[in-house]
């Protein structure tokens, strides 16, 4: 199935684009999809320790099971206010 990574702020800038579509096995977890993203895009690996992951509009745990076409956001440290 396909999922979509949404890239934000410095990750978006580093990647040069704001989304990456990716194919993952049905029933994939957040952590397996994220691992695959970093494997396919090693230049983004350096953000791994600082980003939080959201699915749709909610922060997600690594074991969260993904549905087809869900949007996975990589959230670097936020700076609102």
């Amino acid at each position, binding site marked *: 199935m396909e999922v979509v990574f*949404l890239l*934000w702020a410095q990750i978006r800038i580093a990647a040069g684009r704001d989304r990456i579509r990716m194919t993952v096995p049905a029933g994939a977890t957040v952590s397996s999809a994220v691992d695959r993203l970093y494997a396919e895009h090693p230049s983004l690996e350096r953000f791994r320790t600082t980003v939080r992951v*959201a699915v749709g509009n909610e922060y997600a745990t690594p074991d969260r099971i993904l549905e087809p076409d869900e949007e996975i*956001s990589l*959230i*670097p440290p936020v*700076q609102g206010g």
Partner: protein
Amino acid sequence: MEEAAATIRVEVREGALSIEPVRLEEPGRDGAAVVFHGIVRGQENGARIEAIEYECHVAMARVQLERIARRIARAHALSELVVLHRIGVVPVGETSLYLCAVSPHRPSAFAAAQELIEELKRDVPIWKHARGAHGIRER
């Protein structure tokens, strides 16, 4: 009356904020209103800037901010809570974050306002990009 749910208004959008003077919904109930303006400063990391461009995951930001507001209003027994976050380009000297917490009691209004800002700065997906005098920016 203090048990009733608070009136909450949360907005995350572009353009100048619709800030209204503090007006109490139920005069007599509330003893304190705390208002906060977060304002764009003319310096960012030591360099002069002209504006901040706020990048935002809008749908998620609204959900997160709404939840934070609801939790804090309940925790502090607020009567009213308004949180407005401007995104897009915000010129130096203008308000990017406006907040108004109305409560029967002063300490809860102050605590709520400060907690809300802390949680916003931790969880709401908004990012800053400095815009210099010549429109130079990083994307």
